């Protein structure tokens, strides 16, 4: 989780990613941020996030992102 928070924090220093739950809905993360995130997560966690996982529900909070990472690592 810490590594993920670090990646997120690097994208937007001013956001509290531990508590924010509407990152996509509130347009904190735009499509460019999402792609940067996907690339970094892929490398850091050695997974391959497919396009169908790029949906708001998976990117709205750090918690949701982490749950997706765990699910995909298990796959």
């Amino acid at each position, binding site marked *: 989780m810490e590594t993920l928070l670090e990646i997120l924090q690097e994208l937007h220093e001013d956001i509290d990613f531990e508590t924010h739950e509407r990152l996509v809905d509130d*347009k904190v993360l*735009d*499509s460019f941020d999402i*792609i940067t995130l*996907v*690339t970094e997560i892929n490398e850091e966690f050695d997974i391959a*996030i497919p*396009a*169908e996982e790029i949906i708001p529900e998976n990117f709205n909070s750090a918690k949701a992102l982490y749950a997706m990472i765990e699910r995909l690592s298990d*796959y």
Partner: protein
Amino acid sequence: MLFTSYSFIIFILYYTIPKGLQWVLLLAASYLFYSLMSIKFLFYILFTTITTYFIGIKIGELHNIHSNYLADHKASLSREEKKSYRAFMKSRLWKWLLVCLLLNFGLLVIAKYTNFTIENINGILELIGSSKRLTFWNIALPMGISFYTFKTMSYIIDVYRGKYPPEKNIFKFALFVSYFPQLIQGPISRFDDLSETLFTEHSFDRKNLNFGLQRIMWGFFKKLVIADRMLVAVNTIIRDPEAYQGIFVFLGMLFYTYQLYADFTGGIDITIGISEVLGIKVRENFERPYFSKSITEFWRRWHITMGTWFKDYLFYPLSVWKPMLNFAKFSRNKFGNNFGKKLPVYLTTLIVWFTTGLWHGANWNFIAWGLTNGIVIIISLECKPFYNWFHNKFKVGGTFGFRLFQIIRTTLLMSAIRLFDLYRDVPMTLRMFGTIFTKPNIHMLFNGSLANLGLSLSDYFILLLGFVVLLIVSLVQRTGSVRGKIAESNMVVGYALNYALIIAILIFGAYGIGYDANQFIYNQF
């Protein structure tokens, strides 16, 4: 009025027949509507409907086999075995998806882009001095093909991704593809979204009728009072580029922005309004786009269903495509962590905008339009550090004045890029844009030339008044539905506003060109 008068007959039938047959009536009405346009077009839409339906069913079956097998062998399979089974099934699913995409995008490409390709090949032949020329293909572009192909391809990709199971009933699926109010200019609905209300039974509802009719009227006001009036001046300016340069190009650019907004959003208002009367919910396609503070925000709020289509089905898949990820790695090693990281995103952005341009039409001007959008977005991303520095230094970020500046800047930028669409010729567009700066001739605004654009003083006044009405409605809309507010207000006010709208359309509507559904700008895409 063909489109709407047709809808009114459907409205009456829709609420008099047994409710279970409502969707069947819509299917019949949609096919009749499409056949009235041209019987030849039926082949194309049937092809897309049938191929997508059966491949959808096949993909659904493979998904079932996949999940049943894994459930049955949960305990006996090792992790590695499960992984390799998933990979095997994925490749089978992918093959079917690919067949569907190739067949349907193939048909779209053949119908829409064959002559454009021939034109370019002929251009190359001329360039290399050959006397050979390919003959153009005599083919009429099926109406709405870009819209319904995108709609069906989003369906098949979603089924492939396992987002929802395929539709079992071919007739219901056929209705999703051909639903007549959105057949010719969208919005590009998603199956899971539209099917929630498209196939269900609907009882007559006074509120739906009132709201729907108001929305239809509002669409006609935009289309007939504003767009079709503005069209006259826009056409005068672009048809005589030698006479109308400098300030007139600038005016034409703003006029066209106004015309296209009224035309396209008005058309969508009519579509959504008709659906509302039928009890069917169609997703909004606009969210006050001209209040956007940047071009990326504009594209989140203008033609939303197209933008999200390209994002979900091209931008993201392309970004996570293995070769693109490899390129990202290469780029980071070669160009460092900063620019190297951005390069693949920029490349994807340009590919997506090239395709968006091409989707709008088989012509270089649309490709130039698309690419310019992409380039401006990339420049604005590159300018981010500068913006941050500026805002830290000057603290003007939240002020009304600065927001207004951002809105005007975005509007001017979008309007300027749209000149490609207006002149339909890349060198001509660039030359005309140049004249805004090289020979502005501002004095021509005051020498009576404005009266020669085909609009009288009262036309200009109506257009200005229309602008004020649109602006007020958009401002009110920021805090909730305008129709909701009218419904809650004093009954007299409600009636007065409704009558004012109807009277405005009847008296000030520009009926000169025998209005029908063929004449919406977005029909041609």
